[in-house]
């Protein structure tokens, strides 16, 4: 299926932020915005909700803590108890370093793997960008054109009057 997009190209982050506000206020739905670096404040104006990745990290970390403690207590306390340096079998202070490291390891990897999955980051030969300049110096706002929309001129004016330096159309095969 082919989808049509109108792309507004901006070259300044502040202009872009105000353009997003005005265009959303005018009732036009923005498909996505592409930028070469994270624009601060764009989450609020675009209505992007706060990421829940910290929660993922917390629970992965909790898993790491419990797993590490269980592993050490079971291995040295129950499966093969050995007295080392006169310490008790379950010598909790000795287990802290490994527990800490596994907590960090699980939290970091759990969160990063989730991030790759939810953001659909995967290696691919196909280049999916709308406008190649969006990874260089331009900010690209994409607006999806539904079937039956004819008033392209009005959209063009809306983007231009809000500071777009260029307005392009692009068809994408999805």
């Amino acid at each position, binding site marked *: 299926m082919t989808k049509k997009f109108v792309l507004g190209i901006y070259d*300044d982050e*502040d*202009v872009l932020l105000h353009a997003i506000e005005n265009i959303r206020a005018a009732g036009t739905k923005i498909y*996505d*915005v*592409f*930028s*070469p*670096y*994270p*624009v*601060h404040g*764009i989450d609020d104006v675009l209505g*992007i909700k*706060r*990421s829940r*990745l*910290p929660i993922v*990290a917390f629970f992965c970390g909790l898993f790491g803590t419990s797993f590490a403690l269980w592993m*050490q207590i079971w*291995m*040295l306390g129950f*499966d*093969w108890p*050995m007295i*080392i*340096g006169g*310490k008790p079998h379950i*010598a909790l202070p*000795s*287990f802290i*370093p*490994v527990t*800490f*490291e*596994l907590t*960090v*390891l699980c*939290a*970091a990897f759990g*969160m*990063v793997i989730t*991030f790759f999955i939810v*953001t659909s*980051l*995967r*290696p*691919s*030969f*196909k*280049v*999916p*960008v*709308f406008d*190649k300049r*969006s*990874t*260089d*110096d331009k900010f690209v706002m994409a607006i999806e054109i539904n079937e039956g929309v004819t008033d392209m001129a009005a959209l063009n004016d809306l983007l231009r009057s809000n*500071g777009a330096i260029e307005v392009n159309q692009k068809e994408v095969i999805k």
Partner: protein
Amino acid sequence: MQHVSPIREPLVTGGKTYHDITEDVCRQVEARPNIRWATALAVALVGLAIFIYSCYRTLWYGIGEWGLNKTVGWAWDITNFVWWVGIGHAGTLISAILLLFRQKWRTSINRAAEAMTIFAVICAAMFPVLHMGRPWLAYWVLPLPNTFGSLWVNFNSPLLWDVFAISTYFSVSLVFWYIGLIPDFATIRDRATGPIARRAYALLSFNWTGSAKAWSRYETVSLILAGLATPLVLSVHTIVSFDFATSVIPGWHTTIFPPYFVAGAIFSGFAMVLTLMIITRKLFKLEDYITLEHVESMNKVIILTGSIVGVAYITEFFIAWYSQVEYEQYAFINRATGPYWWAYWSMMTCNVITPQLFWFRGIRRSLTATFIISIFVNIGMWFERFVIIVTSLHRDYLPSSWVMFSPTWIDIGVYVGTMGLFSTLFLLFCKFFPVVNMAEVKSILKSSSAVKPNTHAHMHGTAKDSNKH
């Protein structure tokens, strides 16, 4: 809209635009390798060859190829291990702790510093693995189910804590570094002209498009990773210091070790970042991104951590005397006046006296002086580890076992060889990966550059922002 602070110096000079940053950083990735890079790589490969030969000798003939003896069972190997791990710390410190502290000057140097971390940890890991003598059995350090009975690793041992600490540190640093690289790989992918480069960087960039939602998550991930990496940095060298501090050897069994090792690690790490950055900025013409302001900021960290290390040396000495333990007292007197006095005083000169020169603004901002002092600090920190390890071991409780340690050529070869390994990896990184984090530098351009990035101004709707600055 653009506010030039009267107090803070710009972090990006030369009136760069966003596009200039892309051009400047991508240049060395896209251009053919120049002669300076090729020469440097050739030298590094010689070092790598020395490393491979020394490893071959160590593994084929055994650890007897090293100068270790019954009394000094750990010498250059653990010295080099702790030294390399310490060097690694600056990278994570710059990318994690300074990110949490919102230090904008980290953006130009964090990429290369993190690369340094990864490569330094690889070099560090070589020493314990080689010291095993049979590295193909290295998996024995992991708590894996096995057929030796239900025999598990000893979780009471600081050496095992090291295994977990170093491997976690390495993998988290690697992930942190790679996530930072993804947007920049996308930039190179979109600029690539040849099909091989385009496909290679397309693979490396993991389909990155720079959409607002992705950036939002990306920033969350960076922040949480920084929050996780910060205690990790402190824990790693703390745990490395436990290798010594939990033992009963005079000169090792000290409670000051964890913070003192962490400070020393950051101290040597920053010195190595400076050594590398001063060369890199010159080689790749990055003077506008790695400015004197950056060098000065790093030198301030060096004064701080150098002073902490100095205070720690004096505290150790004081406490040894104050403890009234004669073995402890002897260990420290022996360090300063015994047969290894030269190592002790090299350490004191390089680590305590030379960094104090950075109190002078002129020296702090002089590239030549900084370069020389950074080398001194690296040497001094190597001696610090040598002094701690060898002087404590060579004379402990039993005078009949007192000996001296002298390295063999293989000892020296492995150490010099790891420098070759490090340089090879770093040079390959410089050629194929962007050395400066383009996305992050672009994000500070508006607030911290010498002039406004995009010269044609849209003045409407910006009143709100001008109040913000």
